[in-house]
């Protein structure tokens, strides 16, 4: 089985791109499964089911979604292996921009859209910087110049990634993307022993443990204070 992890900001077009790409792979006779990790709510599982793609969903609720992802992905891989999939696609929304639930030696895709603004690539962090493939969507509604500026910024943030422009509505480019997603020589049996590409936040404070009261005396553990003295160095 092949495993591929897809992440990207909310509503960037992940599900649209996955559905179109999976369609082209299924036409070649591959068996595709999906899992959606989200925080509070998702209807993506319905969309996958409709497309004939077996799907599981996991909601992290009050937990950090990326921590939740790492603690569950192994079991999901076992589900995929038992289901006899050729390709298992994991979709997760990048919720805090700091993290990337990417695993070493597992293909990682970041989906971002042209509408998110040209300063977004810099803000996203490891989710974009450590991806193998960056998919840029929604090029059909902005000008050529904006597309070029946006992809130049993406390239400067992550020069080693392959950048693909995909139209999530028409699927233009999805067939081509599919050729990069599946490798028949790759055989994943388990995630045991594999490592994350980048560490997740180490913060554990009283609020992580359910504290709701505001005030110095309730703050324990890993707490950091905003610096109100210095001038901010962000322009």
């Amino acid at each position, binding site marked *: 089985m092949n495993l591929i992890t897809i992440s990207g900001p909310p509503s960037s077009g992940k599900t649209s791109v996955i559905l179109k790409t999976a369609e082209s792979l299924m036409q070649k006779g591959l068996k595709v499964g999906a899992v959606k990790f989200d925080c509070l709510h998702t209807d993506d599982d319905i969309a996958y089911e409709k497309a004939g793609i077996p799907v599981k969903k996991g909601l992290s609720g009050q937990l950090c979604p990326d921590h939740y992802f790492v603690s569950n992905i192994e079991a999901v891989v076992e589900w995929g292996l038992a289901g006899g999939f050729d390709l298992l696609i994991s979709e997760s929304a990048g919720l805090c921009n700091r993290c990337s639930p990417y695993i070493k030696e597992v293909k990682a895709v970041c989906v971002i859209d042209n509408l998110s603004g040209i300063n977004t690539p810099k803000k996203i962090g*490891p989710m974009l*910087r450590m991806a193998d493939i960056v998919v840029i969507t929604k090029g059909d509604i902005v*000008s050529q*110049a904006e597309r070029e500026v946006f992809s*130049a910024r993406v390239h400067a943030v992550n020069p*080693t990634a392959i950048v693909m422009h995909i139209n999530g509505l028409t699927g233009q*480019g999805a067939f*081509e993307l599919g050729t990069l997603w599946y490798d028949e020589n790759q055989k994943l049996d388990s995630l045991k022993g594999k490592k994350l590409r980048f560490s997740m936040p180490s913060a554990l404070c009283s609020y992580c443990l359910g504290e709701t009261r505001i005030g110095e005396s309730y703050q324990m553990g890993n707490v950091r204070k905003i610096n109100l003295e210095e001038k901010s160095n962000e322009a």
Partner: protein
Amino acid sequence: MKRKEQLLLASPARLLKEYPFLKSFFMQVPEGILYDHQQPLQHLLMEVGEEKSENQGFDTGHFLDQLDEFIHQMEVFSGMAEKTVRSLTILPGNDKSGQPENFESLQFEASTITSIVGPTGSGKSRLLADIEWVAQADTPTKRSVLINNEKPNPDWRFASGKKLVAQLSQNMNFVMDLSVSEFLELHAGSRMIANADIVIQRIIEAANELAGEKFSAQTPITSLSGGQSRALMIADTAMLSSSPVVLIDEIENAGIDRKKALALLTGEEKIVLMATHDPILALMADQRIIIKNGGIFKVVKTSDEERELLAELEKGDKKLQELRTKLRAGEQLGDSI
């Protein structure tokens, strides 16, 4: 390996002097990491430490790999930029039912226009995707694409700084909150071109030539009218886009001089592809292809008779435009018969 070691010994300031294009790369590095451009990189990276690296989501080893790769790609890219694309050739594949396409080879030359006719869903997107992917009989249509009559450099698929096809369609809008000149400066900046000021000036002039109503360099791009936006997009794509092929999806027949718009693109040596159902536009092209059931069904060169017909149609079109103007002005239309 060797270059990475050299990179480590150099300071950002020195690197910028040697590779001016690194400006855009350094701009994307999280704040505070390259805090002193005079210090050697090695020193700056050593100071990052574990805490800062965790906070900023920054990995120093990864950073060095990325820096090295960026320089490598920009060098490849400038090598590619020197070799202009003078022609594209499509070698036939098959349509959706697997029937072979009925042409020997189809040539798109720089400075010429090819119109593409066919209902939505007939395979226009697929043709375009084949060109962008420089297909080598490895897409559903089994078509192949040649560049300058040769098997193309595979870098065309992935070089993110250089896409083969620029696209213009009626759904496209400006979404940035900038003035016309700020917007063009940003685009020129991402292309790292010399004499940006002159090019920007030329784009604004050209766009104003195309659009009915004038706009200035200070106009916010989001407040341009439909015709003005389209004119600016066309002029910008003609003069600032790195892509040698331009695909236009219809040009509306209002607020913009379509003939001049096409002349501007061909004047900049673009290979122009134009999806249209409008006979006037279709006949402005040197040739047209008809798409059916996912395949190229026919290739037709514009004949002399058709050119004569075009002249007639344009006269009628001009008349219609004049009537429109009169209608708006509240005049009697009967006078003009």
